[in-house]
């Protein structure tokens, strides 16, 4: 544990030093990035060793004379620690060049300070072992991430994003407070251990409250409203960290509470699967409708959180229906997807960051043909896209494969489990298809074809630190995709820490599965080489010429004629119009020779829409009605005093 704390200290030290050195920008950036990444690396190493030996380690400090701050590092914690430290490490490296031309050195320094606090608090959240410790780290995490979201507070929409995020995280925290309150109410101490011995109704309440609380952090539909605002607002490496790992702390919370409650009713599984299916499908549908590349990626976080939830839900269903294999498949799949998503999502955000950084626009339809000048960025981005679509031989496929197999185990079960598994499998399939559509859109419109505006022309991809971290992450995607064995071991260790009542998780069946995946991948790659060879032979000594694209008889094609992202997605969105109503603004076309016209479209997030209608406005109007209390007339005020007394005298 001491190593863990040294890592934390190094990280925080880096942040604090940057505050001191705010004047010498370059030096400050060097030192901050170095210390941050060093700390992350040390923590990563430590967590990995601990996870591989599946060791468990505890540390406790007295707090406020009688309470204690307790930290425990078991398999689950270290699994999440691996993800947290890994992503933060590369985000820190990435930030070195990303922030090089920031105008306000002090703000950069402050940003590094809160960045370090965020990393540290996330690490503490996943190691906290009693309620006080947990809430303490949780709230600090929310606070620091809020400051990172409003890093660029000059634009009004970022401020709105920050406000939304702030409110959502606080309300979520309040739900968790309530859940812990119930736990404390029954057990009378702040330790996590006591939760297992509560009555079932209490357990149910706790599970639901924590699900809402953690869900609002993880971005589960309909608590995800803050997410598509906050992620675009933050600097890209922060979006990478937030979307990659911070929202996963919500997932961690759900698993941890489930494990602690030791509550084997099918309801938990059903809740998670339904919530997961809804978030998954709607998330990707909304993503398809976005024009802002970072907003699009943010919605994909919602989608992947949905996939993770379905995995966990399948696991819980397996537990409740006494089906160990299914349970472990579900849990390990879900957990592995946590790791995978944190890798490819941060990779994608970094790529998007590079694009935004160089072109200065986030609008997809303003870009095009970037891959010609941004070879590395483009390639890594495509790899990330393939991974997030869950296609072999990349890492996304592995975890989805596990979840599928687990789901199919559920198909053989009785009614409710059967229905749930069908739901999970089908939504997984639909998500897969939609994600493919969405990312062919992004890749095709942003990186391929011809530049649609000046912004996208003759850009470059300078900034070695950014490229390095992207390349490494992309490599990780492929490695996990082809040789998933060791990583499955990691997640299995994490699962065995859940204490599901299965003594030691048997490895054999899962190694067979991973073996199959590797096998399939190698076959595929082999065939690919074969075909390449054929093609090579076919082209030997042939004449290769270049000319313009065949315009189907139209001789003056312009770049404006390219298919835009909006039109690409339009027909698919039509299918989902009930849940994703499309708003269109365009001039009526009139006359034989129509004038220059314009067209805008915007996909409405129904949760976002109804939040105001159903919650905010009623509350505001209610309180407005009460405002006459402060009427300004002193006679009335004295009346209140008399009233209070008279009323109270009745109770004597």
């Amino acid at each position, binding site marked *: 544990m001491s190593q863990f704390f040294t890592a934390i200290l190094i990280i925080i030290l880096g942040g604090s030093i940057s505050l001191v050195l705010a004047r010498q920008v370059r030096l400050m950036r060097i030192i901050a990035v170095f210390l941050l990444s060093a700390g992350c690396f040390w923590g990563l190493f430590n967590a990995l060793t601990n996870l591989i030996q599946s060791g468990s380690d505890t540390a406790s400090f007295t707090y406020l004379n009688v309470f204690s701050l307790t930290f425990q590092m078991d398999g689950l914690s270290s699994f999440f620690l691996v993800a947290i430290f890994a992503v933060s490490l590369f985000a820190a490296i990435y930030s070195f060049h990303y922030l090089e031309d920031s105008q306000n050195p002090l703000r950069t320094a402050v940003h590094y300070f809160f960045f370090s606090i965020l990393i540290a608090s996330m690490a503490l959240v996943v190691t906290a072992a009693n309620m006080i410790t947990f809430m303490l780290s949780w709230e600090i995490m929310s606070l620091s991430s809020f400051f990172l979201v409003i890093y660029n507070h000059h634009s009004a929409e970022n401020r709105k994003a920050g406000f939304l995020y702030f409110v959502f995280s606080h309300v979520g925290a309040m739900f968790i407070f309530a859940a812990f309150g119930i736990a404390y109410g029954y057990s009378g101490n702040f330790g996590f251990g006591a939760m297992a011995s509560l009555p079932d109704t209490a357990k149910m309440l706790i599970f639901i409250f924590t699900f809402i609380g953690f869900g609002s952090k993880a971005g589960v539909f309909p608590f995800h409203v803050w997410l598509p605002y906050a992620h675009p607002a933050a600097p890209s490496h922060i979006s990478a960290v937030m979307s990659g790992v911070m929202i996963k702390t919500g997932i961690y919370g759900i698993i941890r509470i489930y494990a602690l409650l030791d509550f084997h009713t099918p309801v938990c599984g059903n809740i998670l699967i339904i919530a997961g299916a809804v978030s998954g499908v709607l998330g990707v549908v909304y993503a398809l409708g976005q024009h802002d590349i970072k907003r699009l990626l943010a919605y994909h976080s919602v989608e992947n959180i949905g996939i993770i939830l379905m995995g966990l839900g399948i696991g819980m269903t397996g537990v409740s229906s006494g089906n160990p294999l299914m349970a472990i498949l579900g849990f390990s799949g879900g957990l592995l997807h946590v790791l995978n998503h944190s890798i490819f999502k941060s990779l994608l955000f970094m790529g998007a960051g590079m694009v935004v950084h160089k072109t200065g626009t986030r609008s997809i339809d303003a870009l095009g043909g970037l891959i010609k000048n941004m070879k590395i960025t483009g390639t890594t981005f495509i790899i990330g896209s393939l991974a997030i679509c869950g296609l072999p031989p990349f890492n996304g496929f592995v975890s989805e494969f596990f979840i599928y197999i687990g789901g199919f185990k559920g198909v053989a079960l009785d009614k409710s489990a059967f229905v749930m598994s069908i739901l999970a499998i089908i939504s997984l399939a639909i998500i897969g298809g939609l994600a493919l559509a969405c990312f062919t859109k992004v890749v095709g419109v942003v990186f391929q074809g011809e530049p649609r505006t000046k912004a996208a022309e003759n850009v470059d991809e300078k900034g070695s630190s950014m490229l390095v971290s992207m390349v490494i992450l992309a490599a990780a995607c492929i490695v996990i995709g082809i040789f998933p064995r060791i990583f499955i071991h990691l997640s299995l260790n994490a699962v065995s820490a859940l204490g599901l009542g299965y003594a030691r998780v048997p490895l054999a069946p899962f190694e067979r599965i991973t073996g199959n995946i590797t096998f399939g991948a190698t076959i595929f790659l082999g065939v690919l080489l074969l075909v390449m060879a054929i093609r090579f032979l076919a082209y030997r000594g042939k004449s290769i010429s270049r000319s313009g694209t065949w315009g189907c008889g139209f001789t003056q094609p312009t770049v404006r004629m390219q298919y835009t992202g909006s039109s690409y997605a339009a027909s698919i969105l039509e299918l989902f119009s009930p849940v994703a109503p499309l708003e269109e603004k365009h001039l009526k076309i009139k006359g034989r020779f129509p004038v220059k016209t314009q067209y805008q479209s915007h996909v409405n997030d129904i949760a976002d829409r109804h939040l105001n209608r159903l919650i905010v406005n009623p509350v505001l109007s209610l309180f407005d009605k009460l405002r006459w209390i*402060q009427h300004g007339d002193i*006679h009335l005020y004295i009346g209140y005093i008399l009233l209070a007394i008279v009323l109270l005298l009745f109770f004597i």
Partner: protein
Amino acid sequence: MMHPVDTILSLVLLSVLFSFGSSRLPGLILVVGFQGIVASIVPFFIGHGMSAGGVIFTFVTLAVRGIIIPMSIYWVIKKVAIRREVEPIIGYHASIFCGLGLIVAATFISRQLNIPTISDYTLLFPAAIALLVSGMFLLMARRNAIAMVLGYIMMENGIYLIGTTFSVRARHIVEFGILLDVLAGVMIMAIILQNIKQTFDDVDTALLRTLKD
């Protein structure tokens, strides 16, 4: 048997009605002064053993309550030379009926909970309550700031009556405290009144309603 205290107290009850009916400040001041005197002499008649110091003390109280405070208020009126109307929110007749109603209520309540220490003075408790509540009534039902101050004093008289008669214990500290405090309070209020007058050129509290949400 009719106790002498009760005779005086009956006058107090009457004065309450009068105060509700009176439309002009000077009359109101007289009433308040009278109530002050009564409130401070009642302890003489209630047979809690009275030390010499106590006697002097009570006389001081009488002087302050009966003379100084009313005089100072009167002086304020003179100084700020304002209209003598009390500007009622609730009209005079309505007020009088309220007064009657509250006297009856007070008597009824005091019947309900008979308090041993003052059981043999029938009117003491009703009078006290009447003073208290009517003071509050004036506070709520009169727009004129001075009338409100007078209402406050009337309320204090009521509490004083209760405080001095309910228990012998720590009676002087009670009296002393209330005295000091009413004095200082009234002084502060007088100063504020002057300022109000200077700022708004009136003491109508309808002008003091700007601070609100």
